[in-house]
């Protein structure tokens, strides 16, 4: 049973460029959340998608946007990259039922370096 799959694993971009990160959730999971983990820090919540809509959003600028597809996979897009966007981006999938989350499964992340 495949867990959460993220691609690519590593990425180097230039300041000002745009990037798209991809996530396939664990089989049977319907909710995808994205987290940013800067070096030496804990993950920070970016946003969560459920039923193809952004359900909750953390304190991130509009440069960060996302999408969820009918097969529950998701993309994270970041525009106008800044050096401070360099981080490990983690995708987590879960089952959301009656507003209770039954536990995340995290992917291994995409390491984004902005130069």
């Amino acid at each position, binding site marked *: 049973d495949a867990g959460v799959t993220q691609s690519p694993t590593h990425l180097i971009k230039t300041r000002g460029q745009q990037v798209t990160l991809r996530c396939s959730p664990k089989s049977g999971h319907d909710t995808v959340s994205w987290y940013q983990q800067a070096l030496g820090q*804990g*993950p*920070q*919540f970016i946003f969560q998608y459920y039923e193809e809509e952004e359900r909750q959003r953390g304190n991130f600028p509009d440069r960060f946007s996302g999408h969820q597809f009918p097969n529950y996979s998701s993309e994270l897009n970041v525009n106008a990259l800044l050096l401070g966007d360099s981080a490990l981006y983690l995708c987590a999938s879960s089952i*959301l039922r009656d507003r*209770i989350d039954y536990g995340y499964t*995290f992917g291994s992340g995409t390491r984004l370096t902005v130069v």
Partner: protein
Amino acid sequence: AQSVTQLDSQVPVFEEAPVELRCNYSSSVSVYLFWYVQYPNQGLQLLLKYLSGSTLVKGINGFEAEFNKSQTSFHLRKPSVHISDTAEYFCAVSASGYSTLTFGKGTMLLVSP
């Protein structure tokens, strides 16, 4: 809003010794509590979680944690650590009824022979 404080950024310990990683949280509502482990160049793996019921929670790899509501703590313990337990450990909280996690900054557990 919730917040999590992990009091130690690094905990060195010898193999087979006991260890406790400390976590305190703050929240104005009921919470769920979690401990995750992150090995180098990997994502997060759930060790254990407290949703309700018994305040002593047992997890994978011999870890356990105790929820103390009066002290707003959720410390992680293991009676005897192995070299393979060397990793970063994150405490996290979510408000009851919501599913976003707020993480602490992490504690690096360094186990030496």
